[in-house]
């Protein structure tokens, strides 16, 4: 088999990439904040969603470990045959693309909404996507190392934002817990899970792990770590904003604006923006890399690097054209749209691949087809 990508990443780097991917999306728009009614139960929703997502990640990791030297795209071709396999591959690439364009647009929106309202959103998107594409062209190893070092910066910034508004926190706001029972929390839990479904990119990284066996435990660590960060966010947000939380477009940003220590350590929202920009670049780099390598494998292109810039340009175009306004982006990120879309594509493909694997191992014909 041709080696499209030759780099290797460690388990910790994998975890870092996944955590950044997950926390960036959620802390920026915090889609659960708008979805949960009453808002004080967000942390329960987040925890539940995290636990459910562990199952999904375990499934993806197990599927990948069936043949640890193949990406999920190559596996699809092996299991489903040439045409069907390529189709599944293209669907996955498309999904990663849409994740990337959502992330790019989110960051651009964050800048335009909060900091520079008169600047066209494209300016910020071009800058980040260009940076990310350059990283992606240098291979997974580079992205992984960037991710590993940036993770600590981002976590430090997150901790700052989560602790420093302590004078505004009223933990009373967290009660009553489960006032209306679990039923109204089902759909919002889906929102939490839907963003974790982006972790299907694990199927792409797995063969490039130094030790593919690490995939299982480190991806579970990643889910739990991001879950904890988000739960912490949920608690802090409810404590500070209480019933006014669902009004906010970027709750975590507003949270950082509440910080004021002794009237001089304040206005540190630039820190939040910096953390988001860093993690967004990593997320974009990872998904552009995934798209490019995936596409290269589907079409048998020998160098995925040449695909990165065109894919980046497409990400930009889609990011601009798909959402005509910020509320349109917010609506897209709700469970009813993005959630269902993610669910169908990721759980759908995983299920199809499992089924195919099941039948291949049962039917003698299947074994013969295996190259």
């Amino acid at each position: 088999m041709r080696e499209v990508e030759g780099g290797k990443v460690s388990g910790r780097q994998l975890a870092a990439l996944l955590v950044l991917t997950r926390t960036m999306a959620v802390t920026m728009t915090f889609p659960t904040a708008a979805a949960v009614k009453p808002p004080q139960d967000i942390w329960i929703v987040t925890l539940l969603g995290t636990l459910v997502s562990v199952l999904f990640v375990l499934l993806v990791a197990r599927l990948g470990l069936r043949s640890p030297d193949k990406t999920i795209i190559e596996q699809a071709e092996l299991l489903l045959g040439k045409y069907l396999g390529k189709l599944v591959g293209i669907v996955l690439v498309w999904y990663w693309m849409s994740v990337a364009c959502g992330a790019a647009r989110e960051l651009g929106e964050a800048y335009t909404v909060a900091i520079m309202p008169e600047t066209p959103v494209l300016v910020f998107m071009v800058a980040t996507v260009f940076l990310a594409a350059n990283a992606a062209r240098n291979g997974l190893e580079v992205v992984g190392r960037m991710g590993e070092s940036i993770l600590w910066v981002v976590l430090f910034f997150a901790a700052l934002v989560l602790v420093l508004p302590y004078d505004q926190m009223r933990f009373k706001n967290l009660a009553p817990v489960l006032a209306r029972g679990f039923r109204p929390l089902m759909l919002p839990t889906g929102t939490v899970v839907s963003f974790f479904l982006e972790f299907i990119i694990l199927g792409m990284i797995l063969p490039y792990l130094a030790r593919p066996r690490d995939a299982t435990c480190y991806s579970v660590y990643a889910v739990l770590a991001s879950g904890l960060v988000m739960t912490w966010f949920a608690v802090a947000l409810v404590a500070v904003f209480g019933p006014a939380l669902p009004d906010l477009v970027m709750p975590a940003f507003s949270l950082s604006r509440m910080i004021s220590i002794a009237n001089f350590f304040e206005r540190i929202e630039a820190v939040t923006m910096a953390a988001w920009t860093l993690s967004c670049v990593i997320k974009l780099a990872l998904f552009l890399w995934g798209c490019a390598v995936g596409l290269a494998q589907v079409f048998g292109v020998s160098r995925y690097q040449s695909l990165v810039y065109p894919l980046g340009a497409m990400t930009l175009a889609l990011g601009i054209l798909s959402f005509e306004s910020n509320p349109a982006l917010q609506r897209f990120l709700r469970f009813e749209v993005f959630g269902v879309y993610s669910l169908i594509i990721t759980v759908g493909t995983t299920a199809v691949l499992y089924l195919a694997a099941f039948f291949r191992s049962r039917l003698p014909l299947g074994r013969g087809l295996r190259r």
Partner: protein
Amino acid sequence: MALMTTAGCWNRREIESIGFVLAAGIDEAPQQGKIQVTVQIAKPFAIGGGEAVRGAADEKPFWTVSSTGYTVFEAVRNLLSQSPRRPFWAHNRFILIGEGLARKGIRDALDLFCRDGESRLRVWMVVVKGAKASDLLQAEFELERMPSEGGMGLLQGARQGLSTIGEGMLNDFLQRLEGEGIDPIATRAEIVPRPQEFDIRGELKRETIGGSARLTGAAVFKDDRLVGWLNKPETRGFNWVMGKVRSGIIVIENPREEGKFIGLEILGARGGFKPEVRNGKVTVAVKIEADANVGYVQGFIDLLRMPEAWSSMERRMATVIENEVLAAVAKAQELGSDIFGFGAELNRRYPKKWADEFRDRWDEEFRKIDVKVEVKAKLRRTGLTVKSSEIR
């Protein structure tokens, strides 16, 4: 190379082209249906001060300007036709609301301050009693050149030294507005006219100060409409219940001598309340623990030799606290505004009962609540003297 694209000086703003808003006032405009926005903008060249810039002190370091529009947003933008510098809102400390507008409802007036990226949710909400916000923005303070600094000083003083400021930041206001079973509260300010008894123009050649401001308690809202006021003791009563009393003076009668008073300085307090439902009736048990020092004594008292006077003073202190709390509760019930959040606490404890029985008729129910106050008052120290000086 990529960094060049990220530098972004698209909407750069030079500091010389912006005017820092220090406080903003919102009123009804004289024209029907219009809103008047008044802002106080810092004059950077007049702040300079010190010996270096001689003559800077001649000028007021701020400029107050009003404009009108059909919405707050339009009025704010209309400022540009009068202000050579674009108002910049990130350093705004106060939103002042005139009584007239406050009585009609201020939700719509606040929208801009929540939505806009420059303004902050930490601004203090102040309602001007019996006047327009634009009048208060003319007030000055003798000890601070910048009125917004003076206002912050009063606020900190009243909060920490008197405990007569309710929870009054915009963020608190919004939460109370949107929360179930709780109503908003803001800081109450009044204008103090200062007729000049003598010429105070000395070295500082600033114009004579025509009026000053005073913080005199809290403004009580029902939904987003102003419905009444708490005076200072009532506001402290409110703060006892919320556990927010930090310091202040309690005056009691000297137990040994009628007509003579003793001043106790509050050291700290804990407070809280617990609503209970019995036979469909809500009772609230307020529990307060307060510590104080004897700070001032009129008449004679020897606290070393009169332990019974000590406990009698503690009882009197507890009575004062209880009366303040009951006064605040009575006023809130009279106004029909649950500023304490009794309903919200009921919801936290008994969400089902709240939803089924009380939520829809909380307005009437709140007025009927029976509030029981239990105060544990403790006196700790007597200052540097333990007995008053005896006249022999």
